[in-house]
C-alpha cells in the first residue's frame, strides 16, 4: 500500500540563506502517527507548515494521497484542504476571537449543520452549552479541544499537530493526548505530531523522527529509537529529559551536551552535530553523514552507538 503522505528531500531556505529545513524525507501511512521531535530551530514546525502549504517549499516534493501537492495552485489545493488539516500550539491565537465555537468549527464553508456541530463538540469532550461561546470564555484545554474539532470537521485523513499540548498544564496535557488518541482510533486518522517534549511524543507516536538543524538524524520505530538510540544526539536528548522519580534521577547516566545548537545561517562543515558530539572524529568535521540502516532504524552518524 502506498503511504498517505510522502515527503521527499524537502527543503526550506529563508531569505539570508538560512536553511531551516535541509533535505527531509519521510512517509506516513494511513492511521499512523509519526512524531517529529527536536529542539527549537531544528525545522520541525517549518516542515509541518510546508506539508500543509502554509509555507512554500524551496525544494523537494510532498505527495499526499498519491498526488504531488508541492506546488499545486491555491485553487487546486482547496478541495484537498479538507483531507489535510492542522492543529496549532496556541489555541487562543489560532481561534478567531470574534467567532463562536460553532462558527469556528463549521468554518467558512459551513461544513456542518447545528446538530453536526454539537455532535462534534461532544466528541471532543465539550457540549451543546459551549456552542455559542467565544474563545475568551474557554480555558486553554477547552480552546484546544475546539481547535481539534475544527480540524476534524472536514473529516481529514491527516492532521498535522504542531506542539498541540505544550502550552497546556500537565493535568490538561494528558486529557488532550488521550483525546487525540481516541479520535485517531475512531476515524483512522494519521498524525504528524510535532513536539519538543520527547515524553509526550512517546505516548502519541508509532514512529519517531529526531531532527537537528534542519535534518533528520534518526528515524524509526518508537520503541527501537527510545530504548536504544543510535545517534549520539538522540541519546543525549533522551537522557536529558527529567524523569519524575528521584531515585532514577540520581542513578541514571546523563549526557550533558556542551554549548548551544549552531546558527543555521552558518552551519558547521561535515556533520552539523560535530561541535557538540563527544565522539566526533576528523571525518565528522569533513563529511556530512547520510541516513543509513543501523540496528533496525535509520541514523545519520559516522559512528553510531
Amino acid at each position, binding site marked *: 500500500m502506498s503511504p498517505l503522505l510522502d515527503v521527499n528531500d524537502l527543503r526550506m531556505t529563508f531569505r539570508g540563506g538560512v536553511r531551516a529545513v535541509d533535505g527531509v524525507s519521510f512517509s506516513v501511512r494511513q492511521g499512523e502517527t509519526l512524531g517529529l521531535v527536536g529542539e527549537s530551530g531544528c525545522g520541525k514546525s517549518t516542515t509541518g507548515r510546508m506539508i500543509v502549504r502554509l509555507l512554500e517549499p524551496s525544494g523537494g516534493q510532498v505527495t499526499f494521497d498519491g498526488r504531488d501537492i508541492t506546488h499545486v495552485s491555491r485553487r487546486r489545493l482547496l478541495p484537498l484542504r479538507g483531507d489535510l488539516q492542522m492543529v496549532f500550539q496556541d489555541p487562543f491565537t489560532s481561534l478567531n476571537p470574534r467567532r463562536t465555537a460553532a462558527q469556528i468549527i463549521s468554518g467558512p464553508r459551513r461544513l456542518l449543520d447545528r446538530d453536526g456541530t454539537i455532535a462534534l463538540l461532544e466528541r471532543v469532550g465539550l457540549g451543546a452549552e459551549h456552542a455559542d461561546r467565544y474563545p475568551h470564555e474557554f480555558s486553554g484545554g477547552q480552546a484546544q479541544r475546539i481547535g481539534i474539532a475544527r480540524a476534524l470537521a472536514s473529516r481529514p485523513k491527516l492532521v498535522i499537530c504542531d506542539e498541540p499540548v505544550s502550552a497546556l498544564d500537565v493535568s490538561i496535557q494528558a486529557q488532550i493526548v488521550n483525546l487525540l488518541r481516541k479520535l485517531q482510533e475512531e476515524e483512522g486518522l494519521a498524525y504528524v505530531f510535532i513536539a519538543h517534549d520527547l515524553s509526550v511524543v*512517546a505516548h502519541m507516536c508509532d514512529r519517531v523522527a529526531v531532527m537537528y538543524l534542519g535534518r533528520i538524524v534518526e528515524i524509526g520505530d518508537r520503541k527501537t529509537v527510545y530504548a536504544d538510540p543510535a545517534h549520539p544526539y538522540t541519546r543525549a536528548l533522551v537522557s536529558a*529529559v527529567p524523569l519524575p522519580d528521584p531515585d532514577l534521577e540520581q542513578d541514571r547516566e546523563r549526557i550533558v*551536551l556542551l554549548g548551544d545548537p549552531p546558527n543555521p545561517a552558518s552551519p558547521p562543515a561535515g556533520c552539523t552535530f560535530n561541535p557538540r558530539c563527544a565522539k566526533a572524529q576528523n571525518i565528522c568535521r569533513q563529511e556530512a553523514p547520510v541516513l543509513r540502516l543501523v540496528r533496525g532504524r535509520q541514523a545519520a552518524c559516522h559512528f553510531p552507538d
Partner: protein
Amino acid sequence: MTALLQVTDLRVTFAAGTAVDGVSFTAHQGRTLGIVGESGSGKSVSSLAVMGLHRNAIVEGSIVFDGEELVGASPSRLRALRGSRMSMIFQDPLSSLHPYYTVGEQIAEGYRLHAKASRRAARERAVEMLADVGIPSPRARVADYPHQFSGGMRQRVMIAMALVCEPDLLIADEPTTALDVTIQAQILELIKKIQEERGVAVIMITHDLGVVARVADEVMVMYGGAPVEHAPARQVFKTPGHPYTRGLLDSIPRHDLGGGGPLQAIPGSPPSLLTPPQGCRFHPRCPIYARASAEICATERPAFIAGLACHYPGAAT
C-alpha cells in the same frame, strides 16, 4: 538546623482576588525546596511576596528571613536585602535583562550598589562571575549585550547577576521552562554546582515534576493558592499522600516506561482564583470525592496537617 527563611500562613490578596491563601514553608541553607503547581496555583506569587516584589497587593502572615520579619518591612530595607542576601532568577531571561546595557554593566550594578565596589572592581567581579557560570571567554563577552547571547547563555548571565553578591537564598522561578531540554540539563547542573560550592538555599519553582525530582530535597505541591502536600522529595514521588499529587504523577507522560498507552488524566481544569470552589479546592476533580462523594470535601476546607491537606489522608496511595 535553623531555617534561613520561614514563611508562615502567607496570604497575598490582589484587587481581583486572593492568589495565595495560607502558605507556610521553610528554606534551609544548602538545601533545595521545590515548589510545584500548575498555572494559577500561587507558586510564583508566594515567591514574589518573599522578595517583596508585589505592588498593589496585600501581603499578610509572616516571612522571617534570617531572624528578620519582612512583612511590613520598609521598601528601603527590602531593597537592601534584594540582590545582596536574596536573589531571584526568572523564566524568561530576555525580558528580565535590560537590552540597552551590556551584561557586564548589569552584573556589576548590584555589586557596586551593595558591596560599594568601585567601577573597576565591579567589572572585574562581573568577569569572574561570567567565568563561574560557564560563559566562554568571559573577558570579551562582558561587554556584549543580551541579544548577543543564546537563551541558555542569557540564563547563565541571569544566574551570574543573582549570585554576584553571594546571596544566602536563591529563588529560581521556572528557570528552565523557556529553554530546550539539552540546555535545561546544563542550567540545572549549574544551579546544583553553585549550591554545593556556596551552600545557598534554593527555592525551585516549577510546573515540571521531572525537574523537581532531579534537584529538590523537599517538595511542596500547590493547588488553587495553597499547599496540598509538603514532604521530603522521595516521599512525595514514591508515596504521594494527596490525590492531586497522585493524579499529577500519573498524568505525566513517561518515555522511559515504553510510552504508547493512554495517559491517566485528571478530569476538569484548575480552579479560577476569582471563584474558587467551596470546601476542598480540588474536590471537583478528585477521584476520592467522586467515589465516596463525601459531603465534607464539598463544604469544609481541609486543614494542613502533617504535610497534607486532605480529609482522607492516605486514601490516595
